[in-house]
């Protein structure tokens, strides 16, 4: 019998105040995957995460955690979830250790609670503030305490809603590293507005717009859809299409020197680089970065893209 995915959403919808804010959302996530959930404000990201975390019941459809229906076996399923909402749920009158010890026991840990708290404190870099009152901590540290409570019981599924909010650049880099590490042993859903966070942490991307899943696929697939190229000399579309590795080319600026290139199947960025150099137009920049993802995101946000599976 095959192992069920850690998270399975089956045609999940949610109505709020008479409006359908999430519509027929179907998604699966396996252990070892990090899914980046993107969308503009009001796209339905937080509502989706709340349903996944068992805090909000779907109006229609089912959410399964490790094959267990979240509605039917709510308590059991919820123990397999670690959830960090947009506003970290903290009890500010307690110290970091006191609060995390409570969370550990709340998630069903008993004798191993102290060890779990110690591990979470270490992973989230809270060692220096473990005896401080949460109310006296900076926003960044509070965010880290929120993250620690979400991971301390080693849940199968970790749900993070804007985890980088309030973190400084160094903390953001640490967070990315932490999320990548978590992705090795857990399934992680990460909601963010910050595309570089997705590029740095995620294996897969899902883009929601007006409650509908408009794009879903691997990060590599989403990014290889386009490569940004800057040349020293101007080029025309026909020049690009003459190159055997290029399937499509679109100008990214009017000067003819900035382009979004889509590669043919089987072609790689290094092949494209070699062809540009061979042509002698001066390769100044070539990025298989998030330009394509950003382009997809912006197109969807503008309402111009149809559902795509990369």
């Amino acid at each position: 019998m095959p192992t069920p995915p850690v998270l399975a959403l089956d045609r999940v919808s949610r109505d709020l105040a008479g409006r359908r804010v999430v519509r027929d959302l179907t998604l699966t996530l396996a252990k070892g995957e990090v899914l980046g959930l993107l969308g503009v404000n009001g796209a339905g990201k937080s509502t989706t995460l709340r349903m996944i975390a068992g805090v909000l019941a779907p109006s229609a459809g089912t959410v399964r955690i490790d094959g267990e229906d979240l509605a039917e076996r709510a308590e059991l399923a919820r123990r397999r979830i670690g959830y960090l909402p947009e506003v970290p749920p903290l009890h500010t009158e307690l110290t970091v250790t006191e609060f995390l010890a409570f969370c550990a026991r709340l998630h069903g840990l008993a004798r191993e609670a102290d060890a779990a708290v110690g591990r979470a404190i270490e992973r989230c870099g809270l060692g220096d503030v473990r005896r401080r009152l949460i109310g006296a901590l900076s926003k960044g540290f509070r965010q880290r305490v929120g993250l620690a409570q979400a991971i301390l019981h080693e849940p199968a599924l970790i749900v993070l809603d804007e985890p980088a909010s309030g973190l400084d650049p160094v903390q953001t880099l640490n967070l990315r590293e932490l999320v990548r590490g978590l992705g090795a042993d857990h399934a992680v859903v990460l909601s963010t507005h910050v595309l570089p966070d997705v590029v740095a942490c995620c294996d897969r991307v899902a883009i929601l717009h007006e409650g509908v899943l408009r794009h879903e696929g691997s990060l590599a697939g989403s990014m290889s859809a386009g490569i940004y190229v800057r040349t020293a000399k101007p080029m025309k579309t026909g020049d690009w299409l003459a190159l055997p590795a290029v399937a499509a080319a679109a100008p990214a600026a009017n000067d003819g020197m900035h382009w979004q290139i889509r590669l043919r199947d089987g072609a790689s960025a290094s092949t494209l680089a070699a062809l540009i150099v061979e042509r002698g137009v001066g390769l100044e920049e070539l990025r298989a970065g998030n330009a394509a993802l950003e382009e997809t995101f912006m197109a969807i946000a503008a309402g111009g893209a149809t559902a795509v599976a990369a």
Partner: protein
Amino acid sequence: MSASLLIARHEWRRLAAQPFAWLLAAIVVALMAWQFLLALEGFLELSPKLGSLKDAPGVTDLVAIPLLRSFSNLLMLLVPLVTMRAIASERRAQSLVLLLAGGVGNVRVVLGKYFGAFAFVLVLIVLVAAMPLALGFGTALDYGRLAAALIGLVLFAGALTAIGVLCSAWTAQPALAAAAAFAITSLLAIVDAGARLKGIDNSGINYLALPTHIEPFFRGLVSSIDIVYFLLVAAVALAFAAKRLERLRSVSD
């Protein structure tokens, strides 16, 4: 450890960490101690005359029971202040999600919140009860009647605490929760006032009123119908509070 007990202990810990709870306890003890000393002084002035009366009231009738009766009135104001933050402040701080997402059922969350607040109210009852009980070192107390009054007070406080938790689950504003709890308990206290003015004291409306059920305890009568009344009020209020949490899962909070 059961989830309810865990949440109750956590609530207790959170209450103890707040200056508000200590201030409230200090005010209650000071207020009741002042009343106790006034009643005691009155009793000492009156006691030479009481000696000549047949079946004269003792210190239990004139000091202890009036003090506990007065405390029961104070509890109607006090308990909403203790319970107002139980769930409302968590909703306001958006930390209720910790419990809702934590694999703990709604009933156990409500019971945990209830017992955490009730434990604090019990401590206040013990502190106040210690005043008349201290008279036992120097005079003869009617311990049976005192025990009945304390049982009634505990049941009464239990029902008020449940109403307070229900109101705290109903709104995200602690002050509004306190006001609503005070309004409901006040309504239950005076619901039969009209009937009593007309000399009716044994009708259905009388049964609904809180004083109908607390007064027998102060007279030394422990009756199962009064016990059931308080337990019923507490159970219904807690059931509605759990229902409210269920509702919070189905709407965006």
